Protein backbone atom coordinates (compact mmCIF):
# COMPACT_ATOMS: atom_id res chain seq x y z
CA UNK A 1 0.00 0.00 0.00
CA UNK A 2 2.32 2.67 -1.27
CA UNK A 3 2.04 5.56 1.06
CA UNK A 4 -1.34 4.87 2.61
CA UNK A 5 0.01 5.23 6.12
CA UNK A 6 2.95 7.41 5.28
CA UNK A 7 2.70 10.91 6.65
CA UNK A 8 5.11 12.17 3.99
CA UNK A 9 3.01 10.86 1.12
CA UNK A 10 -0.09 12.62 2.44
CA UNK A 11 1.97 15.76 2.96
CA UNK A 12 3.15 15.63 -0.66
CA UNK A 13 -0.45 15.44 -1.84
CA UNK A 14 -1.38 18.34 0.42
CA UNK A 15 1.54 20.42 -0.87
CA UNK A 16 0.39 19.81 -4.42
CA UNK A 17 -3.26 20.50 -3.67
CA UNK A 18 -3.23 23.25 -6.25
CA UNK A 19 -2.58 20.86 -9.12
CA UNK A 20 -5.49 18.69 -7.95
CA UNK A 21 -7.71 21.76 -7.77
CA UNK A 22 -6.55 22.77 -11.22
CA UNK A 23 -7.45 19.32 -12.50
CA UNK A 24 -10.84 19.54 -10.85
CA UNK A 25 -11.33 22.95 -12.41
CA UNK A 26 -10.52 21.57 -15.87
CA UNK A 27 -12.84 18.64 -15.32
CA UNK A 28 -15.66 20.92 -14.17
CA UNK A 29 -15.09 23.31 -17.06
CA UNK A 30 -15.09 20.47 -19.58
CA UNK A 31 -18.13 18.80 -18.04
CA UNK A 32 -20.14 22.00 -17.79
CA UNK A 33 -19.41 23.18 -21.33
CA UNK A 34 -20.06 19.71 -22.69
CA UNK A 35 -23.34 19.65 -20.75
CA UNK A 36 -24.53 22.85 -22.41
CA UNK A 37 -23.67 21.39 -25.82
CA UNK A 38 -25.33 18.08 -24.88
CA UNK A 39 -28.54 19.85 -23.81
CA UNK A 40 -28.72 21.68 -27.11
CA UNK A 41 -28.04 18.56 -29.17
CA UNK A 42 -30.37 16.48 -27.00
CA UNK A 43 -33.26 18.93 -27.39
CA UNK A 44 -32.85 19.06 -31.17
CA UNK A 45 -32.45 15.29 -31.55
CA UNK A 46 -35.34 14.55 -29.17
CA UNK A 47 -37.68 16.92 -30.99
CA UNK A 48 -36.58 15.54 -34.36
CA UNK A 49 -37.23 11.99 -33.22
CA UNK A 50 -40.76 12.85 -32.08
CA UNK A 51 -41.60 15.19 -34.95
CA UNK A 52 -43.36 12.45 -36.91
CA UNK A 53 -41.52 13.50 -40.07
CA UNK A 54 -39.72 10.53 -41.60
CA UNK A 55 -36.48 12.22 -42.78
CA UNK A 56 -36.01 14.04 -39.46
CA UNK A 57 -36.71 10.88 -37.51
CA UNK A 58 -34.23 9.00 -39.66
CA UNK A 59 -31.45 11.54 -39.11
CA UNK A 60 -32.04 11.49 -35.34
CA UNK A 61 -32.04 7.69 -35.31
CA UNK A 62 -28.80 7.42 -37.27
CA UNK A 63 -27.10 9.97 -35.03
CA UNK A 64 -28.18 8.25 -31.82
CA UNK A 65 -27.34 4.74 -33.04
CA UNK A 66 -23.96 5.73 -34.36
CA UNK A 67 -22.91 7.62 -31.26
CA UNK A 68 -24.34 5.17 -28.72
CA UNK A 69 -22.82 2.12 -30.36
CA UNK A 70 -19.22 3.30 -30.58
CA UNK A 71 -16.96 4.01 -27.58
CA UNK A 72 -16.53 7.59 -26.43
CA UNK A 73 -12.80 7.04 -26.31
CA UNK A 74 -12.76 6.16 -29.99
CA UNK A 75 -14.81 9.22 -30.92
CA UNK A 76 -12.52 11.45 -28.92
CA UNK A 77 -9.35 9.97 -30.43
CA UNK A 78 -10.86 10.13 -33.90
CA UNK A 79 -11.67 13.80 -33.51
CA UNK A 80 -8.43 14.68 -31.80
CA UNK A 81 -6.06 12.93 -34.18
CA UNK A 82 -8.00 13.88 -37.31
CA UNK A 83 -7.81 17.54 -36.27
CA UNK A 84 -4.20 17.25 -35.20
CA UNK A 85 -3.00 15.64 -38.43
CA UNK A 86 -5.03 18.09 -40.49
CA UNK A 87 -3.23 20.90 -38.68
CA UNK A 88 -6.40 22.28 -37.06
CA UNK A 89 -5.72 21.32 -33.45
CA UNK A 90 -8.23 22.86 -31.04
CA UNK A 91 -6.45 21.82 -27.88
CA UNK A 92 -7.38 18.96 -25.59
CA UNK A 93 -10.06 20.75 -23.57
CA UNK A 94 -12.00 22.07 -26.54
CA UNK A 95 -11.76 18.76 -28.38
CA UNK A 96 -12.91 17.04 -25.22
CA UNK A 97 -15.88 19.39 -24.84
CA UNK A 98 -17.00 18.65 -28.39
CA UNK A 99 -16.55 14.89 -28.10
CA UNK A 100 -18.25 14.68 -24.70
CA UNK A 101 -21.04 17.02 -25.77
CA UNK A 102 -21.74 15.04 -28.94
CA UNK A 103 -21.66 11.75 -27.01
CA UNK A 104 -23.85 12.87 -24.12
CA UNK A 105 -26.11 14.69 -26.58
CA UNK A 106 -27.15 11.37 -28.09
CA UNK A 107 -28.16 10.08 -24.64
CA UNK A 108 -29.96 13.32 -23.81
CA UNK A 109 -31.80 13.03 -27.12
CA UNK A 110 -33.04 9.58 -26.14
CA UNK A 111 -34.16 10.91 -22.74
CA UNK A 112 -36.08 13.75 -24.38
CA UNK A 113 -37.64 11.38 -26.91
CA UNK A 114 -38.74 8.89 -24.26
CA UNK A 115 -40.21 11.68 -22.10
CA UNK A 116 -42.17 13.21 -24.96
CA UNK A 117 -43.42 9.78 -26.00
CA UNK A 118 -44.58 9.15 -22.43
CA UNK A 119 -47.21 11.88 -22.85
CA UNK A 120 -50.46 10.22 -24.01
CA UNK A 121 -51.22 10.66 -27.69
CA UNK A 122 -54.60 12.22 -26.88
CA UNK A 123 -52.80 15.25 -25.47
CA UNK A 124 -51.21 15.98 -28.84
CA UNK A 125 -54.53 15.52 -30.61
CA UNK A 126 -56.42 17.63 -28.11
CA UNK A 127 -53.89 20.44 -28.44
CA UNK A 128 -54.10 20.25 -32.20
CA UNK A 129 -57.89 20.29 -32.06
CA UNK A 130 -57.69 23.49 -30.00
CA UNK A 131 -55.79 25.09 -32.87
CA UNK A 132 -52.37 25.19 -31.22
CA UNK A 133 -49.42 25.30 -33.59
CA UNK A 134 -46.30 23.15 -33.06
CA UNK A 135 -44.52 25.58 -30.75
CA UNK A 136 -47.59 26.24 -28.65
CA UNK A 137 -48.40 22.55 -28.47
CA UNK A 138 -44.91 21.76 -27.24
CA UNK A 139 -44.55 24.81 -25.01
CA UNK A 140 -47.93 24.77 -23.26
CA UNK A 141 -49.09 21.17 -23.33
CA UNK A 142 -46.39 18.59 -23.99
CA UNK A 143 -43.17 19.88 -22.43
CA UNK A 144 -44.70 20.87 -19.07
CA UNK A 145 -45.82 17.25 -18.75
CA UNK A 146 -42.63 15.65 -20.01
CA UNK A 147 -39.99 17.71 -18.23
CA UNK A 148 -40.58 16.07 -14.82
CA UNK A 149 -40.12 12.69 -16.54
CA UNK A 150 -36.97 13.93 -18.25
CA UNK A 151 -35.14 15.33 -15.26
CA UNK A 152 -34.08 12.23 -13.26
CA UNK A 153 -32.50 10.40 -16.23
CA UNK A 154 -30.86 13.67 -17.23
CA UNK A 155 -29.24 13.95 -13.81
CA UNK A 156 -27.92 10.42 -14.34
CA UNK A 157 -26.45 11.52 -17.63
CA UNK A 158 -24.75 14.44 -15.90
CA UNK A 159 -23.12 11.97 -13.50
CA UNK A 160 -21.96 9.85 -16.44
CA UNK A 161 -20.67 12.92 -18.22
CA UNK A 162 -18.67 13.92 -15.18
CA UNK A 163 -17.13 10.46 -14.88
CA UNK A 164 -16.51 10.32 -18.64
CA UNK A 165 -14.23 13.36 -18.51
CA UNK A 166 -11.63 10.75 -17.53
CA UNK A 167 -11.41 9.84 -21.22
CA UNK A 168 -9.33 12.99 -21.76
CA UNK A 169 -6.39 11.13 -20.27
CA UNK A 170 -5.78 9.22 -23.51
CA UNK A 171 -5.02 12.38 -25.47
CA UNK A 172 -3.00 13.89 -22.65
CA UNK A 173 -5.57 16.08 -20.96
CA UNK A 174 -5.18 18.12 -17.80
CA UNK A 175 -8.36 16.88 -16.12
CA UNK A 176 -8.53 15.45 -12.61
CA UNK A 177 -7.62 11.86 -13.55
CA UNK A 178 -4.75 12.90 -15.79
CA UNK A 179 -3.38 15.27 -13.17
CA UNK A 180 -3.59 12.51 -10.55
CA UNK A 181 -1.77 10.10 -12.82
CA UNK A 182 1.01 12.51 -13.70
CA UNK A 183 1.28 13.32 -9.99
CA UNK A 184 1.81 9.71 -8.94
CA UNK A 185 4.27 9.04 -11.76
CA UNK A 186 6.02 12.43 -11.65
CA UNK A 187 9.75 12.52 -10.98
CA UNK A 188 9.55 14.78 -7.92
CA UNK A 189 6.17 13.69 -6.58
CA UNK A 190 6.03 10.03 -7.61
CA UNK A 191 5.10 7.14 -5.39
CA UNK A 192 2.28 8.62 -3.33
CA UNK A 193 -0.18 6.30 -5.06
CA UNK A 194 -2.66 5.57 -2.30
CA UNK A 195 -3.22 9.12 -1.03
CA UNK A 196 -3.45 10.59 -4.53
CA UNK A 197 -5.93 7.98 -5.75
CA UNK A 198 -7.99 8.32 -2.59
CA UNK A 199 -8.15 12.10 -3.00
CA UNK A 200 -9.07 11.80 -6.68
CA UNK A 201 -11.73 9.16 -6.00
CA UNK A 202 -13.12 11.17 -3.09
CA UNK A 203 -13.52 14.26 -5.27
CA UNK A 204 -15.39 12.27 -7.91
CA UNK A 205 -17.53 10.66 -5.23
CA UNK A 206 -18.39 13.95 -3.56
CA UNK A 207 -19.64 15.37 -6.85
CA UNK A 208 -21.37 12.27 -8.21
CA UNK A 209 -22.93 10.64 -5.14
CA UNK A 210 -25.42 13.43 -4.27
CA UNK A 211 -26.45 13.70 -7.92
CA UNK A 212 -26.97 9.99 -8.48
CA UNK A 213 -28.81 9.61 -5.16
CA UNK A 214 -31.03 12.54 -6.10
CA UNK A 215 -31.79 10.94 -9.47
CA UNK A 216 -32.67 7.58 -7.91
CA UNK A 217 -34.97 9.08 -5.24
CA UNK A 218 -36.60 11.41 -7.75
CA UNK A 219 -37.31 8.58 -10.12
CA UNK A 220 -38.75 6.44 -7.34
CA UNK A 221 -41.06 9.22 -6.16
CA UNK A 222 -42.21 9.88 -9.73
CA UNK A 223 -42.99 6.21 -10.18
CA UNK A 224 -44.92 6.14 -6.93
CA UNK A 225 -46.97 9.16 -7.92
CA UNK A 226 -47.61 7.67 -11.32
CA UNK A 227 -48.62 4.41 -9.67
CA UNK A 228 -51.15 6.28 -7.51
CA UNK A 229 -52.57 8.01 -10.56
CA UNK A 230 -52.64 4.88 -12.71
CA UNK A 231 -56.29 3.82 -13.07
CA UNK A 232 -55.42 0.18 -13.74
CA UNK A 233 -53.42 -0.06 -10.54
CA UNK A 234 -56.18 1.70 -8.58
CA UNK A 235 -58.65 -0.86 -9.88
CA UNK A 236 -56.39 -3.69 -8.75
CA UNK A 237 -56.09 -2.12 -5.30
CA UNK A 238 -59.84 -1.69 -5.08
CA UNK A 239 -60.43 -5.34 -5.89
CA UNK A 240 -57.84 -6.37 -3.36
CA UNK A 241 -59.51 -4.24 -0.69
CA UNK A 242 -62.90 -5.71 -1.51
CA UNK A 243 -61.54 -9.22 -1.27
CA UNK A 244 -59.95 -8.41 2.07
CA UNK A 245 -63.23 -7.03 3.42
Amino acid at each position, binding site marked *: *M*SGLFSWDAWATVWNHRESFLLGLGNTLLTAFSALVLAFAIGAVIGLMATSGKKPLKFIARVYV*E*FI*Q*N*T*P*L*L*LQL*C*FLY*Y*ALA*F*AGLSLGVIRTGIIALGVYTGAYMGEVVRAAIESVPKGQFEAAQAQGFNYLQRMGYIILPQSIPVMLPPMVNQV*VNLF*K*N*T*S*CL*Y*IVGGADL*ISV*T*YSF*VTGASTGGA*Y*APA*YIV*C*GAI*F*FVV*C*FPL*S*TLATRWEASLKERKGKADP*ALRAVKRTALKEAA
Partner: protein
Amino acid sequence: MSTLASSFSILAQPGVFVYLLRGVAFTCIISVLGVILGLILGSLLALARTYCKKGPARILGWLSAAYIELFRNTPYLLWIFVCVVFCPCPAFFARKMFGLTSVEMKLLFKAALALILFNSSVIAEIVRGGLNGVAKGQFEAGYAQGFNTAEVLLYIILPQAYRNIVPTLLSQVITTIKDSSYLANVATIELMARIRQLLSAAGTYNGLGTVNVSDVMVLFGTACVIYFIINFTLSCIVRAMQARRKKALVFAPAKAA
Protein backbone atom coordinates in the same frame (compact mmCIF):
# COMPACT_ATOMS: atom_id res chain seq x y z
CA MET B 1 -6.11 10.78 -53.21
CA SER B 2 -2.96 8.67 -53.24
CA THR B 3 -2.60 9.04 -49.47
CA LEU B 4 -6.04 7.53 -49.04
CA ALA B 5 -5.11 4.54 -51.18
CA SER B 6 -1.94 4.02 -49.18
CA SER B 7 -3.94 4.33 -45.96
CA PHE B 8 -6.20 1.52 -47.11
CA SER B 9 -3.13 -0.49 -47.96
CA ILE B 10 -2.33 -0.57 -44.21
CA LEU B 11 -5.35 -2.78 -43.67
CA ALA B 12 -4.22 -5.07 -46.47
CA GLN B 13 -0.85 -5.76 -44.81
CA PRO B 14 -0.65 -9.44 -43.90
CA GLY B 15 -0.07 -9.10 -40.16
CA VAL B 16 -2.40 -6.17 -39.58
CA PHE B 17 -5.65 -7.99 -40.20
CA VAL B 18 -4.84 -10.79 -37.76
CA TYR B 19 -3.53 -8.25 -35.24
CA LEU B 20 -6.83 -6.36 -35.34
CA LEU B 21 -8.93 -9.52 -35.34
CA ARG B 22 -7.20 -10.67 -32.17
CA GLY B 23 -7.93 -7.25 -30.72
CA VAL B 24 -11.63 -7.71 -31.48
CA ALA B 25 -11.52 -11.15 -29.88
CA PHE B 26 -9.91 -9.72 -26.73
CA THR B 27 -12.50 -6.94 -26.60
CA CYS B 28 -15.31 -9.48 -26.77
CA ILE B 29 -13.74 -11.90 -24.28
CA ILE B 30 -12.97 -9.17 -21.74
CA SER B 31 -16.49 -7.78 -22.02
CA VAL B 32 -18.26 -11.12 -21.73
CA LEU B 33 -16.10 -12.07 -18.74
CA GLY B 34 -16.72 -8.66 -17.22
CA VAL B 35 -20.47 -9.08 -17.47
CA ILE B 36 -20.68 -12.74 -16.39
CA LEU B 37 -18.37 -12.40 -13.37
CA GLY B 38 -19.87 -8.97 -12.69
CA LEU B 39 -23.30 -10.58 -12.67
CA ILE B 40 -22.25 -13.15 -10.07
CA LEU B 41 -20.68 -10.57 -7.76
CA GLY B 42 -23.42 -8.06 -8.54
CA SER B 43 -26.17 -10.54 -7.66
CA LEU B 44 -24.63 -11.17 -4.25
CA LEU B 45 -24.33 -7.43 -3.66
CA ALA B 46 -27.90 -6.82 -4.78
CA LEU B 47 -29.26 -9.61 -2.56
CA ALA B 48 -27.37 -8.23 0.43
CA ARG B 49 -28.48 -4.66 -0.23
CA THR B 50 -32.12 -5.62 -0.81
CA TYR B 51 -32.74 -8.23 1.88
CA CYS B 52 -30.15 -7.71 4.64
CA LYS B 53 -32.09 -5.08 6.52
CA LYS B 54 -32.64 -6.56 9.97
CA GLY B 55 -30.46 -7.83 12.79
CA PRO B 56 -26.71 -8.30 12.50
CA ALA B 57 -27.07 -8.94 8.76
CA ARG B 58 -27.70 -5.20 8.44
CA ILE B 59 -23.94 -4.66 8.40
CA LEU B 60 -23.73 -6.80 5.26
CA GLY B 61 -26.44 -4.66 3.67
CA TRP B 62 -24.59 -1.47 4.56
CA LEU B 63 -21.30 -2.80 3.24
CA SER B 64 -22.75 -3.78 -0.09
CA ALA B 65 -24.54 -0.43 -0.37
CA ALA B 66 -21.24 1.32 0.32
CA TYR B 67 -19.46 -0.81 -2.27
CA ILE B 68 -22.10 -0.18 -4.92
CA GLU B 69 -22.19 3.57 -4.36
CA LEU B 70 -18.40 3.85 -4.21
CA PHE B 71 -17.85 2.16 -7.57
CA ARG B 72 -20.87 3.70 -9.25
CA ASN B 73 -19.78 7.22 -8.49
CA THR B 74 -16.14 7.07 -9.54
CA PRO B 75 -14.75 6.61 -13.06
CA TYR B 76 -13.65 3.22 -14.37
CA LEU B 77 -10.24 4.61 -15.35
CA LEU B 78 -9.47 5.36 -11.70
CA TRP B 79 -10.08 1.70 -10.83
CA ILE B 80 -7.85 0.57 -13.69
CA PHE B 81 -5.06 2.73 -12.27
CA VAL B 82 -5.72 1.48 -8.74
CA CYS B 83 -5.71 -2.17 -9.78
CA VAL B 84 -2.61 -1.76 -11.94
CA VAL B 85 -0.71 -0.47 -8.91
CA PHE B 86 -2.19 -2.39 -5.99
CA CYS B 87 -3.70 -5.62 -7.25
CA PRO B 88 -1.38 -8.61 -7.04
CA CYS B 89 -1.40 -10.86 -10.08
CA PRO B 90 -1.26 -14.63 -9.47
CA ALA B 91 1.73 -16.37 -11.06
CA PHE B 92 -0.61 -18.40 -13.25
CA PHE B 93 -1.49 -15.32 -15.29
CA ALA B 94 1.93 -13.71 -15.25
CA ARG B 95 3.31 -15.66 -18.19
CA LYS B 96 3.10 -15.71 -21.97
CA MET B 97 -0.38 -16.64 -23.11
CA PHE B 98 -2.69 -16.05 -26.08
CA GLY B 99 0.10 -14.29 -27.97
CA LEU B 100 0.58 -11.69 -25.23
CA THR B 101 3.77 -11.05 -23.31
CA SER B 102 3.81 -11.73 -19.58
CA VAL B 103 3.70 -8.00 -18.86
CA GLU B 104 0.62 -7.62 -21.04
CA MET B 105 -0.98 -10.65 -19.40
CA LYS B 106 -0.44 -9.07 -16.00
CA LEU B 107 -2.02 -5.83 -17.18
CA LEU B 108 -4.87 -7.74 -18.79
CA PHE B 109 -5.57 -9.56 -15.54
CA LYS B 110 -5.53 -6.36 -13.50
CA ALA B 111 -7.61 -4.33 -15.93
CA ALA B 112 -10.11 -7.16 -16.29
CA LEU B 113 -10.37 -7.34 -12.50
CA ALA B 114 -11.01 -3.60 -12.41
CA LEU B 115 -13.73 -4.08 -15.02
CA ILE B 116 -15.37 -6.84 -12.99
CA LEU B 117 -15.27 -4.79 -9.79
CA PHE B 118 -16.67 -1.73 -11.56
CA ASN B 119 -19.26 -3.66 -13.55
CA SER B 120 -20.51 -5.56 -10.52
CA SER B 121 -21.65 -2.30 -8.91
CA VAL B 122 -23.62 -1.31 -12.01
CA ILE B 123 -25.07 -4.78 -12.46
CA ALA B 124 -25.96 -4.94 -8.75
CA GLU B 125 -28.26 -1.96 -9.27
CA ILE B 126 -29.79 -3.64 -12.33
CA VAL B 127 -30.38 -6.86 -10.37
CA ARG B 128 -31.85 -4.85 -7.51
CA GLY B 129 -34.34 -3.35 -9.94
CA GLY B 130 -35.23 -6.89 -11.01
CA LEU B 131 -35.60 -8.04 -7.40
CA ASN B 132 -37.89 -5.14 -6.60
CA GLY B 133 -40.09 -6.24 -9.49
CA VAL B 134 -40.72 -9.63 -7.91
CA ALA B 135 -43.93 -9.62 -5.88
CA LYS B 136 -43.58 -10.04 -2.09
CA GLY B 137 -46.12 -12.83 -2.11
CA GLN B 138 -43.60 -15.00 -3.92
CA PHE B 139 -41.53 -15.16 -0.73
CA GLU B 140 -44.46 -16.10 1.42
CA ALA B 141 -45.62 -18.68 -1.09
CA GLY B 142 -42.10 -20.15 -1.16
CA TYR B 143 -41.89 -20.35 2.63
CA ALA B 144 -45.36 -21.87 2.76
CA GLN B 145 -44.09 -24.64 0.48
CA GLY B 146 -41.39 -25.41 3.04
CA PHE B 147 -38.44 -23.85 1.20
CA ASN B 148 -35.78 -22.16 3.30
CA THR B 149 -34.52 -18.67 2.49
CA ALA B 150 -31.66 -19.82 0.25
CA GLU B 151 -33.97 -22.11 -1.69
CA VAL B 152 -36.60 -19.43 -2.09
CA LEU B 153 -33.99 -17.04 -3.45
CA LEU B 154 -32.37 -19.57 -5.73
CA TYR B 155 -35.44 -21.29 -7.13
CA ILE B 156 -38.15 -18.65 -6.96
CA ILE B 157 -36.93 -15.08 -6.61
CA LEU B 158 -33.72 -14.92 -8.66
CA PRO B 159 -35.06 -16.70 -11.78
CA GLN B 160 -37.92 -14.21 -11.95
CA ALA B 161 -35.61 -11.27 -11.29
CA TYR B 162 -33.17 -12.39 -14.00
CA ARG B 163 -36.00 -12.85 -16.46
CA ASN B 164 -37.04 -9.25 -15.86
CA ILE B 165 -33.60 -7.83 -16.47
CA VAL B 166 -32.34 -9.75 -19.51
CA PRO B 167 -32.71 -6.76 -21.89
CA THR B 168 -31.05 -4.38 -19.41
CA LEU B 169 -28.19 -6.82 -18.93
CA LEU B 170 -27.69 -7.05 -22.68
CA SER B 171 -27.47 -3.26 -22.89
CA GLN B 172 -24.90 -3.50 -20.13
CA VAL B 173 -22.87 -5.77 -22.43
CA ILE B 174 -22.87 -2.94 -24.98
CA THR B 175 -21.74 -0.48 -22.32
CA THR B 176 -19.03 -2.91 -21.22
CA ILE B 177 -17.74 -3.36 -24.78
CA LYS B 178 -17.49 0.41 -25.02
CA ASP B 179 -15.90 0.69 -21.58
CA SER B 180 -13.33 -1.98 -22.43
CA SER B 181 -11.73 0.60 -24.72
CA TYR B 182 -10.45 2.28 -21.55
CA LEU B 183 -7.91 -0.52 -21.39
CA ALA B 184 -6.15 1.29 -24.22
CA ASN B 185 -4.87 3.65 -21.52
CA VAL B 186 -2.66 1.00 -19.94
CA ALA B 187 -1.97 -1.75 -22.48
CA THR B 188 -2.18 -2.67 -26.15
CA ILE B 189 -4.44 -5.67 -25.97
CA GLU B 190 -7.87 -4.90 -27.29
CA LEU B 191 -9.18 -3.27 -30.45
CA MET B 192 -8.98 0.38 -29.45
CA ALA B 193 -5.39 0.13 -28.25
CA ARG B 194 -4.31 -1.81 -31.32
CA ILE B 195 -5.82 0.80 -33.64
CA ARG B 196 -3.86 3.49 -31.83
CA GLN B 197 -0.75 1.37 -32.01
CA LEU B 198 -1.22 1.00 -35.78
CA LEU B 199 -1.74 4.73 -36.15
CA SER B 200 1.52 5.51 -34.41
CA ALA B 201 3.32 3.20 -36.84
CA ALA B 202 1.20 4.15 -39.85
CA GLY B 203 4.12 5.90 -41.52
CA THR B 204 5.99 2.66 -41.99
CA TYR B 205 2.94 0.66 -43.03
CA ASN B 206 1.54 2.98 -45.69
CA GLY B 207 4.86 3.27 -47.44
CA LEU B 208 4.87 7.06 -47.36
CA GLY B 209 6.97 7.56 -44.27
CA THR B 210 4.49 10.06 -42.83
CA VAL B 211 1.20 9.77 -40.97
CA ASN B 212 -1.61 11.57 -42.79
CA VAL B 213 -5.18 12.52 -41.98
CA SER B 214 -6.38 9.75 -44.26
CA ASP B 215 -4.61 7.20 -42.03
CA VAL B 216 -6.54 8.52 -39.05
CA MET B 217 -9.78 8.33 -41.02
CA VAL B 218 -9.20 4.82 -42.30
CA LEU B 219 -7.93 3.30 -39.05
CA PHE B 220 -10.41 4.89 -36.66
CA GLY B 221 -13.14 4.48 -39.25
CA THR B 222 -12.43 0.75 -39.31
CA ALA B 223 -12.62 0.61 -35.51
CA CYS B 224 -15.92 2.54 -35.58
CA VAL B 225 -17.38 0.09 -38.08
CA ILE B 226 -16.31 -2.93 -36.03
CA TYR B 227 -17.65 -1.55 -32.74
CA PHE B 228 -20.82 -0.42 -34.48
CA ILE B 229 -21.52 -3.83 -36.02
CA ILE B 230 -21.10 -5.63 -32.69
CA ASN B 231 -23.05 -3.14 -30.62
CA PHE B 232 -25.78 -2.41 -33.11
CA THR B 233 -26.53 -6.12 -33.44
CA LEU B 234 -26.83 -6.35 -29.66
CA SER B 235 -29.01 -3.26 -29.41
CA CYS B 236 -31.33 -4.61 -32.12
CA ILE B 237 -31.72 -7.78 -30.06
CA VAL B 238 -32.46 -5.70 -26.95
CA ARG B 239 -35.11 -3.69 -28.78
CA ALA B 240 -36.78 -6.76 -30.26
CA MET B 241 -36.92 -8.29 -26.78
CA GLN B 242 -38.40 -5.16 -25.23
CA ALA B 243 -41.01 -4.89 -27.97
CA ARG B 244 -42.04 -8.51 -27.39
CA ARG B 245 -42.31 -7.94 -23.66
CA LYS B 246 -44.36 -4.80 -24.09
CA LYS B 247 -46.75 -6.73 -26.28
CA ALA B 248 -47.02 -9.50 -23.70
CA LEU B 249 -47.66 -6.89 -21.03
CA VAL B 250 -50.45 -5.28 -23.06
CA PHE B 251 -52.16 -8.58 -23.69
CA ALA B 252 -51.69 -10.06 -20.23
CA PRO B 253 -54.51 -8.14 -18.45
CA ALA B 254 -56.92 -9.04 -21.24
CA LYS B 255 -56.05 -12.69 -20.76
CA ALA B 256 -56.55 -12.40 -17.02
CA ALA B 257 -59.96 -10.84 -17.46
